[in-house]
């Protein structure tokens, strides 16, 4: 419990611990010692104090005080106020220094000191406690006048055990002679007035008094008496502190207020996790994430639209690409066709040129031929055939005639020759007959010699062969021999023939006659034949003339030559004709090709729309190229677009498939709902707290309005006594502000009163409060710091009486620097404890 802030709500039990039984509570509460003091009866009073260091004091002991009225006399600057501040400082924390307030720090060291509280001997009785009495058994069974502590059975009635537990303390203060069985020491040593954790004893000692109440009601000086801050609330807090509940209602109300405050705490500590601002912060955190996720969801659904559009675009693109591709193919075909056409065209052109050349050549040849052969009159082939026949016939005739002539001529000549010869012969015969005989002999001799030689050779060879035993030589020899014999035979034969020659001169003369006849005959024949021949020649010449060859041919051969030439010409002409035919056929082919090409051209033009009919091939080629490159570009663009599209589609698909498994948005929504539920819970809790606060406030109000009249009544009495009847009532006006009523019924607000009367009024109130709620702060002394200075003597006496009256129930310490005040107090209260500084 010691480490928690004052209004923490949590229990310290981290795990589930069963709630303690009664005995356990008792024992445990020894440590906590809560309630050990409160309500159970034991009352304490400030017996002495030890200042280690505070203000002007250093290692100073003050006391012993009595449980009733005390007066501390000291001159100015003796430290009266210091002592008062010290007591408050130890109880509630050192005063904060500032430009207008004194912190009471000094250079000797940190502020430190101890208050010693002793148990009262006679609670509620007139303060007859002497210094140093032991009050070991004062608490057995004594009912201290607070209500029976049977609230929920959790209040311990265990002071016995508590006191036994604590054991003996030696007082350690000056003048302590006896052991104080259950003395309580409150020490504070912290620097700079920082509130430090109070010990349990400390808290229980103070019980229901907080710093404000102490300052307003218990620690009085003339300034305090000018007012009663938060008048009626203070009263109620004061009074409610004396209610019969285990926790004072004002404390409970405070707790509730604190809980209400906690609802709005922004602390990050675990226990404040459910506070409204923290929940709202969590909610806004999650909500911003949720917004993002909702955004994402929205985008996803937009992406669906995009996907649909993209798919459509994809289809369109596909179609476009297909179209472009077919166009490309078309154009490319066109191109190929065009190239083909070009080649064909070129070839055709060449061929046409060739043909033309050939035609020209042929024409030229023809012309040349014609020109070189146009001399002869042309004849038809059939005529030529006849003519040839004629020529043959003529020739035959001529040849015959010629032959005949020749024969005749020959015969004639022969005859002539014979004749002549014969004549010669006859002449010669005579001369020759002599000479021939000689030659005949020689002629006969020569071969015989030869034959004899041969015979010899043959025989030799034959014998040689036989000697050599060689068949071949032998054979050869035989052959030669054979030849020799044959030759001999021949000579013989020849010789016989020579014998037959008769004398022929007579014969010769006969002959001459016949020959002359023959000659004449032949001559005549010859002349006839010559005439024939000339006739033939004339016939031929006429025929040639008729044929028209007169200028060109002189004879049949020449005529035949002409015919041959003509035939040749005709043949050549026929060849020419053939060639022309072939050339024409080629021409026709070329024309056909030309037509085909023209058609192809048309086709190309048709398929290629940019084509102009006037375009040349290279123009077309260029245009086609351009068109192709354009198409290629478009295709590339389209394909690029397609790639991009597909990529985009792929990305979207990925996103979709991821999203199909993504539950983040749902989880965030759930979180938001959970937080909303918790926020609703927190709001409901707040509403409960607010209603509870109203409930308890209302009850408090009624409580106080029941008992506060008591306070104001008493205050009225005290004031009446103090002012000797000048003022006899204290009440609240309709606005809830304090006012006094004079004996004459005149009401007056404090602000209108004289200084003294005002202080008397507020003093009366305080005294009345302290009297009415006799249990509240029962252990804490009331400190009056020269509060009577503004009172006149009569009122001073009245005040002193009132104070003394209160001292019967409470410890009061009056500080003064006036000796006559001391005397006055002594007079009024003989049991007073007097301390001088």
């Amino acid at each position: 419990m010691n480490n928690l802030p004052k209004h923490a709500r949590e229990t310290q039990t981290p795990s589930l611990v069963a709630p303690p039984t009664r005995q356990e509570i008792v024992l445990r509460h020894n440590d906590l010692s809560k309630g050990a003091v409160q309500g159970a009866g034991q009352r304490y009073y400030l017996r002495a104090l030890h200042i280690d260091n505070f203000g002007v004091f250093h290692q100073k002991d003050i006391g012993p005080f009595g449980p009733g009225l005390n007066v501390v006399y000291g001159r100015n600057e003796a430290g009266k106020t210091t002592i008062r501040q010290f007591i408050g400082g130890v109880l509630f924390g050192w005063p904060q220094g500032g430009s207008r307030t004194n912190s009471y720090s000094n250079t000797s060291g940190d502020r430190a000191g101890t208050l010693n509280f002793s148990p009262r001997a006679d609670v509620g009785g007139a303060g007859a406690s002497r210094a140093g009495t032991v009050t070991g058994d004062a608490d057995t069974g004594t009912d201290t006048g607070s209500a029976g502590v049977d609230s929920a059975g959790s209040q311990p009635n265990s002071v016995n055990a508590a006191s036994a537990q604590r054991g003996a303390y030696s007082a350690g203060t000056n003048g302590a002679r006896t052991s104080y069985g259950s003395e309580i020491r409150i020490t504070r040593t912290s620097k700079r007035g920082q509130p430090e954790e109070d010990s349990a004893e400390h808290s229980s000692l103070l019980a229901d008094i907080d710093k404000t109440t102490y300052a307003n009601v218990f620690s009085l000086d003339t300034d305090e008496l000018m007012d009663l801050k938060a008048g009626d609330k203070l009263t109620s807090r004061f009074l409610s502190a004396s209610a019969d509940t285990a926790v004072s209602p004002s404390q409970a109300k405070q707790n509730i207020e604190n809980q209400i405050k906690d609802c709005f705490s922004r602390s990050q500590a675990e226990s404040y996790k459910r506070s409204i601002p923290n929940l709202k912060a969590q909610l806004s955190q999650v909500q911003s994430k949720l917004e993002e996720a909702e955004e994402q969801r929205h985008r996803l659904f937009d992406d669906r639209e995009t996907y649909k559009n993209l798919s459509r675009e994809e289809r369109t693109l596909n179609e476009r690409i297909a179209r472009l591709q077919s166009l490309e193919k078309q154009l490319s075909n066109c191109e190929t066709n065009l190239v083909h056409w070009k080649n064909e065209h070129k070839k055709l052109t060449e061929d046409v040129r060739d043909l033309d050349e050939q035609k020209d050549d042929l024409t030229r040849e023809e012309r040349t031929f014609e020109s070189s052969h146009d001399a002869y009159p042309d004849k038809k082939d059939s005529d030529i055939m006849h003519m040839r026949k004629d020529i043959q016939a003529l020739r035959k005739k001529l040849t015959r005639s010629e032959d005949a002539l020749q024969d005749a001529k020959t015969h004639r000549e022969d005859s002539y020759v014979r004749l002549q010869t014969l004549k010669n012969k006859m002449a010669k015969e005579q001369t020759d007959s002599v000479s021939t005989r000689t030659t005949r002999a020689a002629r006969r001799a020569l071969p015989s010699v030869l034959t004899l030689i041969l015979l010899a050779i043959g025989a030799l060879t034959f014998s040689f062969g036989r000697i050599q035993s060689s068949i071949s030589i032998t054979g050869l020899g035989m052959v030669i021999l054979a030849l020799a014999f044959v030759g001999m035979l021949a000579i013989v034969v020849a010789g016989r023939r020579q014998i037959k020659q008769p004398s022929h001169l007579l014969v010769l003369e006969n002959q001459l006659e016949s020959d002359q006849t023959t000659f004449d005959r032949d001559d005549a024949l010859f002349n006839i034949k010559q005439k024939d021949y000339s006739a033939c020649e004339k016939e031929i010449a006429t025929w040639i003339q008729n044929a028209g060859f007169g200028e060109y041919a002189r004879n049949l051969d020449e005529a035949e030559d002409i015919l041959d030439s003509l035939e040749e010409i005709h043949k050549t002409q026929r060849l020419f004709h053939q060639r022309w035919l072939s050339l024409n056929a080629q021409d026709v082919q070329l024309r056909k090709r030309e037509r085909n090409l023209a058609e192809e051209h048309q086709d190309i033009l048709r398929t290629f729309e940019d084509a102009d009919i006037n375009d040349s091939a290279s123009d077309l080629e260029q245009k086609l190229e351009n068109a192709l490159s354009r198409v290629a570009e478009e295709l590339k663009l389209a394909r690029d677009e397609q790639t991009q599209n597909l990529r985009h589609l792929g990305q979207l698909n990925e996103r979709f498939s991821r999203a199909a498994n993504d539950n983040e948005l749902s989880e965030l929504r759930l979180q938001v709902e959970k937080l909303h539920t918790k926020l609703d819970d927190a709001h409901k809790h707040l509403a409960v707290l607010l209603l509870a606060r109203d409930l308890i406030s209302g009850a408090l109000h009624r409580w106080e309005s029941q008992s506060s009249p008591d306070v104001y009544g008493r205050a009225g009495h005290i004031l009446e006594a103090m002012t000797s009847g000048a003022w006899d009532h204290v009440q609240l006006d309709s606005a809830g502000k304090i006012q006094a009523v004079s004996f004459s019924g005149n009401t007056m607000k404090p602000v209108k009163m004289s200084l003294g009367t005002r202080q008397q009024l507020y003093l009366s109130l305080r005294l009345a409060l302290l009297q009415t709620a006799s249990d509240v702060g029962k252990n804490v002394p009331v400190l009056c710091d020269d509060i009577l200075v503004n009172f006149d003597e009569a009122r001073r006496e009245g005040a002193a009486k009132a104070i003394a009256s209160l001292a019967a129930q409470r410890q009061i310490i009056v500080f003064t620097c006036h000796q006559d005040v001391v005397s006055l107090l002594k007079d009024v209260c003989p049991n007073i404890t007097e301390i001088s500084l």
Partner: protein
Amino acid sequence: MATDAKVTFIHAADLHIGAPFTGIRHTTPELAHSLVAAITQSYNRLIDTALRRQVDFVVFAGDVFDRARPTYADFSSFYNGLNKLQTAHIPVYICNGNHDPWSTWSKDYGELPDNTHIFSAEHPEFFVYRKGNSPDGTPLATLGGRSFLNETFPKNDCIANGITKFDAQRATRIATPFYVGVIHTGLDFDHNQAYVPRQKLFSSGMNYWALGHIHKRMVINAPNGQNMQLVYSGCIQGRDVKEIGPRGCELITLEQGKRNKLEFIPLSSIIWEQCNVDISECSTLDQVTSKIRHALQRIDAGPGEHKVVVRVALVGRTNLNTLFSNENLNAIRHNINEHHAIVFCDSIIDCTRGIRDDATIKREGLFASLVLEGASWQKDHSNELFESLEREFAQRGEQLPREFSDQMQSVEQDALELVFRELGGEKK
């Protein structure tokens, strides 16, 4: 006719696909996961049932989606389910409700498969169902319905107007053996949500009315033994702790000459329950824990594969309530959930009251009696208190939770308990 005509279909409504669960305080990651998947799982079970039982068609009577638009995953599941039905030649007829009016469908939800038909929002519309969902099947049933155009149905028009057997025949020029009406309406329970007096439906000549809007299954039989029912199929998965009990869809069989057959098909993945545990006899937190455990064990999970999530309320009179801090209750809850597989406790709420003898307190006339007086004053001035609470909240820039005015009584009770707890509590 050789055989009597017969048609079976599934009637579901209020799917609220995409809507988060409300009213939940605590989840484990496992439970959170189940929650997130719950509605989709239930929907998938619906589709499976339709396929397994080979129904003729499916009807969704509104609120298929929610104002919180479905996530992509949820929408994909919905779409896939429709596709599966399309493959099996099962058409789907949908009317839009106040949470998913036509104005949001047409904008957000793209094109649905061909087998899905949505009733028009501008006028009653009729669809003729032919056997096997093919154009030459025999006409078996005419469905008539009307959708919400916006989030509220115009008050001067009745959503059931023009949906009668006679109107159906006139519009379609076909006579069918059965007529089914499909609308999203509060009937005569909710005057603010497409009010329709039930008599109007009883006299419409339809065989069956497939209704949506009320999340709890309800069957209203036509009077005088007429063979007609007005049925709320209820939602297929409870989405709030308050929607307790099993949820699902209806499988309807209409057969000529026989009474309509209705069969409830449970579909939920998560069933909510509420459980009050009286801990008056307990004196330790351990005893409280075991009492809660016993109570949970007695909860019947019912058939099917679903989780049961229980909201436990501690009731009774005890003075242990000072120990019922959030932390302690959470610790108890964790303890219980660790040992329980099927049933999950989402939160434990302290509704206990302190042990007090009010009569004695009043008699003693001490401070506590003043508190009781104040409490009874509060009870008599609930409305004023409500307004002053509103003001106080507004001052702090806060707002009271929805429908708070209905809870004033319990709030006052809680306030009283809190005051007594504070007064009797341990001093700090």
